[in-house]
């Protein structure tokens, strides 16, 4: 049965490839098969349920014959499980939804399918517009000139701010021109007693300070916006210098204006503090905008109260940091056509627009960002997101891209964590990190 299905798909693929010039009218009719086929998707458990319950349901309205089962895996185990599955002789998963720095690691072990290969071209809709993707999100799933994925959840590290708290403090709202020096000058005023009971009840900032792999992204963004880089052209650590040290000291300085206990704060804690209206600003992944400003079930704030923009500027410009989840097809999948059909629809103009308007996921396509969104609150978010894409592409604001990037990121997490906790100076921490990362990457 499985073999006959495979043969059937292969025959159809050949036929489709041969008749591409005379493409059928509907974009995805090319990739559509009538025979039932089931594909398995491995994704981060943080959003696997949303994919299964919403995106797959919408997808099946167009492709009822492709049954999609999405399995969620906790983030910390996701890469290891993907590697384990993709390198087995008979992998279970046809689609892998991979985090920003993982493409090199998975590509190096031959786990991912080249989506622009001749084989996949036969399954690709004629009007699937690769050029419409913004460069930064598309580059997340590219490695050594080969495109292994398409952006599905385009996230950028952004600055959220609470207009009410800024007004109460008498501090002007941030703009993309705001510099780190100006922000640090304003920060003491944003630590305030808002109800007049004599106790401080609102703070200037909350973000990643805890010892974990995403905390160094804040330091890195400050460094990048000042012209610093993680690695040089030869792939050797280039962050152990004045710019890197100053950036880490700035990151640590933010703790002075953060709520008590912020040293243990990461994604969840900073998000909670912002949603409860206790911090004036938050450096956080842009995709949380909907749950922080729109959905009354999860936030006390409204879109009118919450502004979003790029992170403050350094000497070379504002900062952002790329965090794209890309959809990739497993190289050993026997159902590549169905898997790619699913990913094409999710990342197509149609699919992306539907997901943006209905689920609030961030688009990667220029056309989606340029179009007027259905919800009013999305318009300023789109403008900021487009700027963040441009800024991150220009400053190469992303994590280390190397088959051993996770090991390097963990070392950065350890050392940035030590500096944050005062167990090492910024210079000592970066010196240790540079020595260790050089060993790991070579």
């Amino acid at each position: 049965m499985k073999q006959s299905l495979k043969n059937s798909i292969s025959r159809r693929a050949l036929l489709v490839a041969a008749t591409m010039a005379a493409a059928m009218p509907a974009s995805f009719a090319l990739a559509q098969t009538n025979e039932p086929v089931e594909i398995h998707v491995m994704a981060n458990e943080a959003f696997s349920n949303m994919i299964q319950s919403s995106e797959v349901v919408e997808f099946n309205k167009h492709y009822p014959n492709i049954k999609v089962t999405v399995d969620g895996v906790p983030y910390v185990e996701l890469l290891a499980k993907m590697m384990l599955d993709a390198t087995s002789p008979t992998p279970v998963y046809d689609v892998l939804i991979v985090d920003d720095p993982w493409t090199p690691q998975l590509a190096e072990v031959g786990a991912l399918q080249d989506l622009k290969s001749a084989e996949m071209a036969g399954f690709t809709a004629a009007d699937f517009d690769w050029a419409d993707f913004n460069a930064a999100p598309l580059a997340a799933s590219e490695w050594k000139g080969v495109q292994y994925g398409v952006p599905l959840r385009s996230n950028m590290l952004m600055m959220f701010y609470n207009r009410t708290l800024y007004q109460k403090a008498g501090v002007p709202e941030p703009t993309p021109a705001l510099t780190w020096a100006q922000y640090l000058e304003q920060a003491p005023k944003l630590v305030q007693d808002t109800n007049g009971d004599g106790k401080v009840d609102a703070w200037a900032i909350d973000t990643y300070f805890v010892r974990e792999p995403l905390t160094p992204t804040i330091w890195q963004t400050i460094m990048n916006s000042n012209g610093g880089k993680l690695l040089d052209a030869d792939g050797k650590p280039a962050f152990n210098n004045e710019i890197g040290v100053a950036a880490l000291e700035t990151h640590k300085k933010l703790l002075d204006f953060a709520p008590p206990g912020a040293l243990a704060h990461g994604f969840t804690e900073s998000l909670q503090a912002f949603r409860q209206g206790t911090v004036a600003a938050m450096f956080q992944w842009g995709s949380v905008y909907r749950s922080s400003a729109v959905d009354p079930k999860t936030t006390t704030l409204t879109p009118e109260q919450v502004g979003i923009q790029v992170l403050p500027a350094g000497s070379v410009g504002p900062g952002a940091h790329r965090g794209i989840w890309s959809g990739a097809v497993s190289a050993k999948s026997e159902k590549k056509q169905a898997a790619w059909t699913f990913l094409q629809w999710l990342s197509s103009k149609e699919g992306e627009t539907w997901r943006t308007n209905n689920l609030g996921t961030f688009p990667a396509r220029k056309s989606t960002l340029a179009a007027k969104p259905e919800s009013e609150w999305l318009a300023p978010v789109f403008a900021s997101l487009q700027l963040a894409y441009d800024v991150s592409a220009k400053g190469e604001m992303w994590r280390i891209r190397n088959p051993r990037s996770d090991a390097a990121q963990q070392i950065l997490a350890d050392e940035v964590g030590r500096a944050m906790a005062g167990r090492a100076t910024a210079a000592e921490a970066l010196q240790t990190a540079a020595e260790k990362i050089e060993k790991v990457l070579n």
Partner: protein
Amino acid sequence: MVNERLTSAHPTHSRLARKFADLVSRWAFMVPAAVLLLAVLAYPIFYTIEISFSRFDLATFSAVEWVGWENYAHVLDDYRFWESMKVTVVYLVFALPLQIVLGFGIAFLINAEWRGRNIVRALFIIPMVVAPVVAGGLWRMILDPLWGIVNYVLGLVGLGPLDWFGDPTLAMAALIIIDTWRWTPFVILTATAALLALPRDVFEAAEIDGANWWAKLWSITLPLLVPIIAATFVVRWLGAVKMFDIALAATYGGPGGATNVINLFIYEEAFRSLRFAESAAMAVIILVVTMVLTAIFLRGSRLLEERY
């Protein structure tokens, strides 16, 4: 039938045959269990040892090349390994005695007959069955510097606010508190069972001799409980030495690695950094250290049993 013929013709052969048949039948019963044990217990250990001496290829997800002691050298050269070992020692030195003293103390205090005793004992099981991740999250809320009830109560008596997860010493204290909350009930239940099993006649004789409460505790109860205390210590030691889930959920090993116990470090190196060979080397080192210390504790436990 064959056996009968052999018996009559060659008695020695017959005995040997019976012995052989006996041996075969014994092994026939033992082999399935032995194979099962080898498969589920020994194989993973030997595979870990193999990985620890090899280069681990992520493309095939297997050990591919013998590298000798190289992974061990990397591990022993990594200051983070030694830091984690120190953190683990501090945690064990404080958490284990605290749990044993608290567990046996509480068990002794609730050993008297009173209404509702059984319900209270049943409630003691709750912390043990709460998932470590849930316990970690729960205690993060309880100890939150801003919203947590502990700081609120401390504030009422003019103490704090304490930054439980931001200060290295307090973070370790928080870890010990959470672990003690989870595992002291286990010690209490063990101690309660031991106290109930103590021979009544010895206490009755002591009472007739005029022994007071303290004399009975010091001269009878504690000596009789020593073997149980030692055994409980060994069991808890084996559980505590592999603890990492509470640290992962409550402190993430921070601040700055202050609560990064060795098993959390191994886990992070394996599953976050994908350095399986180095992680395997660390696991083998910990296995050997744990086995040596466990052997010492068991020997000590046996000596105490013999003495008392």
